[in-house]
């Protein structure tokens, strides 16, 4: 097991290098820093001095890969590639355009992001698995049919409408909770209820349908018939046999997103003005703060790889046949 984990972590390194190179190419090779400066300052006001100042502020005025002027190790360390790309492996992300330290900002914003993403994750997992089991229990009846119709209809609504509609209905019309905002501590619950509810609703259509398919596939297998034949009740079959055996495909989709919860949800956080990583990313995209976007790309891929490893570990926990070697 340990050997397997070490191998997986080692295997993650080339992937992270790939991500890193890709972002570097995207941000510094496709467009030269001069282009970015011109875009950022505005094409009309971009004088050569302004461009130089913009580049110097961000440390983009160094050579790309090899600094011919420097001596010794600085030949390679005093370059854009080393400064902006390789330092990320040490989780040093530099400063955003507003001068704040990106690493500190990310640490501060993880809390609010988790506060909204974790309840959403748990609730929607619970709700969609229960609803899917309900539909499977009543399979081939009108309840099942209309349930699937509802799921397809709910899937066809853009998440934007869930958010806009929910905010309008619950916060404006009924005035039950504040429209947006955030407060630290327990006070946050007031602000978090609506976004969590909306996120759960927005995702429930597709996930119920997905789990229903998994359960139906499982229920047509021989062992289920055997279980019924030995006289188990349908409920016992569903919970003790089908649900347990369906865990592998469910885990494949679920565990990988757990580390990503840190990243928050872009839309919900920005609509509800929650100071998490999602709204941080959106603000950075709108302000074209390339350093922040780069940092988020890197963190996102690290979390994704952690998720993959966790998925493998979770298999061993639910299925004794799976051994990691």
């Amino acid at each position: 097991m340990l050997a397997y984990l070490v191998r997986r972590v080692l295997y993650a390194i080339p992937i992270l290098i790939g991500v890193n190179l890709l972002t570097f190419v995207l941000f510094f090779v496709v467009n030269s820093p001069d282009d970015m400066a011109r875009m950022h300052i505005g094409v009309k006001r971009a004088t050569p001095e302004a461009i130089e100042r913009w580049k110097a502020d961000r440390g983009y005025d160094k050579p790309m890969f090899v600094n011919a002027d420097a001596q010794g190790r600085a030949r390679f360390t005093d370059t854009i590639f080393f400064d902006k790309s390789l330092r990320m492996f040490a989780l040093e992300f530099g400063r955003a355009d507003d001068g704040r330290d990106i690493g500190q900002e990310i640490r501060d914003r993880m809390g609010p992001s988790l506060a909204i993403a974790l309840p959403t994750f748990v609730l929607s997992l619970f709700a969609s698995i229960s609803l899917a089991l309900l539909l499977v229990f009543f399979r081939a009846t009108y309840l099942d049919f209309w349930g699937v119709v509802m799921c397809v209809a709910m899937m066809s609504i853009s998440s934007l409408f869930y958010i806009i509609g929910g905010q309008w209905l619950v916060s404006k019309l009924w005035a039950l909770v504040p429209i947006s905002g955030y407060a630290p501590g327990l006070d946050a619950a007031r602000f978090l209820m609506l976004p969590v509810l909306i996120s759960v609703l927005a995702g429930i259509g597709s996930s119920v349908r997905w789990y229903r398919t998994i359960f139906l596939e499982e229920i047509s297998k021989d062992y289920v018939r055997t279980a019924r034949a030995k006289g188990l009740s349908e409920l016992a079959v569903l919970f003790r046999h089908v649900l347990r055996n369906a865990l592998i495909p469910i885990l494949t989709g679920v565990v990988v997103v757990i580390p990503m919860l840190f990243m928050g949800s872009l839309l919900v956080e920005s609509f509800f003005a929650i100071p998490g990583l999602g709204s941080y990313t959106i603000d950075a995209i709108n302000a074209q703060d390339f350093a922040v976007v780069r940092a988020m790309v890197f963190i996102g891929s690290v979390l994704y790889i952690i998720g993959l490893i966790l998925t493998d570990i979770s298999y061993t926990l639910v299925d004794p046949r799976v051994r990691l070697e």
Partner: protein
Amino acid sequence: MSAPMSFQPVLLWTDLLLFVLLGAALLAVLHVRGNEPLRAAWRKVGKRPAGMAAATVLLAFVVVGVLDSLHYRPLLPAVEAVALEAGDTPEAAPVPSAAVYSTEVLSVLDALLEPLRAQTEKTYSAPFAAQLYQREAMELPDGRQVRGYPRLVHGAAHLHDPAGERAGDVAARVASGIGQAVLAWLLFFAVFATLAWHGSSLAWGQVAAAMLAGRTVLAWRAVLVTLAIILLIVGVCLELAPLYHVLGTDKVGQDVLYLSLKSVRTALVIGTITTLVMMPFAVALGIAAGYLGGWVDDAVQYVYTVLNAIPGVLLIAAAVLMMQVVIDTHPQWFDTAAERSDARLLALCFILGITSWTGLARLLRGETLKLRELEYVQAARAFGVRTPAILRRHILPNVMHIVLIALVMDFSGLVLAEAVLSYVGIGVDPTTISFGTMINMARAELAREPMVWWSLAAAFVFMFVLVLAANLFADVVRDAFDPRRS
């Protein structure tokens, strides 16, 4: 010298790709006609009422999208041509009254909807309203200044007393629209019945009766019912839209019905061209990785794990930001604003394609791994058939159902993604009319007092119908083509 053409055709990149796609679809139809197993699978689609109804709705959207993809630049009136002579346009012939084409790119849909496009108001107006939604200072005939709701320039302008006459006028026009719709529907019905009757041993009347009763093999009744609903809506709108703003107007006074119809093309382009541009990569790499194995497999898997590792939105954001820099720093590449926003739309398709090909490639790799061990492939190898020929003749046709399923399944997700991305600011160009830009503009309107709901409602209904039809159709196609779901 002949008179200049009254318009100059413009072929945008996305138009070209849409037409390529349509051509490919026609070729595919011809191919399916000559191939019995494929025909059987499509017949399964045709038997399902949900699938046929969804297909009818999608076809209606496609017609709107295709009409909106035939672009041209209208000829400017001669007077303006003289005034513009100083600014030499490359198209201008060396005669004084030379043809000068507008820099505004229009489409056939714009021409058909000319009244809707041109009849803009000052700002918001509610559906069917005769007055503006906002109080303004007005001058009365006797010179006094009052604050009130001014009459609209176009909406209900033909009525003297809107409050009294409107209900009757609308009812009369709705009746006339319904009448036209019924006539059009009867025509369609006659054509369909004749098509179904052609080559059958029954009398025409029997076929027609069977279609209405839903006793045909293909679900013709679902098509007819859906068509009736579409025609009713179209007929009523045709009667009302030139005189009223059926769905109101937005902040700058544009007709919301017009905006919604224009959004359809953007949604279709994103939903189809994205898959079209990513398909060759996904198919080639997926099959190669699965069949060849070894270092090819390792390399392909590495590439798609790297792309997968980056959260989709962030990769798209990074790529779009960079593409924006390229487009903004090279204004000389684009003649018109339409070409520039089209370039951005195409770039978005490519970027979405690059981030989404991994899923299809992985599926194809898995399927190819299974196929290469099957007897017929091994037999082909034993006979000394070369690898490219095996891939083309034995592997590719047997994984095409996965490609087809991916194509239809991805469509609705991409349409939804466009709206979210445009909202975040990394979607289409802000000047491109799309559901995303519509929602983005309409977002603050709900908070307004009094509330403006119609833009959002229109975007919601159009998007919902399009995505729902796409989802239903995708399900039916998947059921018909996925061998595991027989």
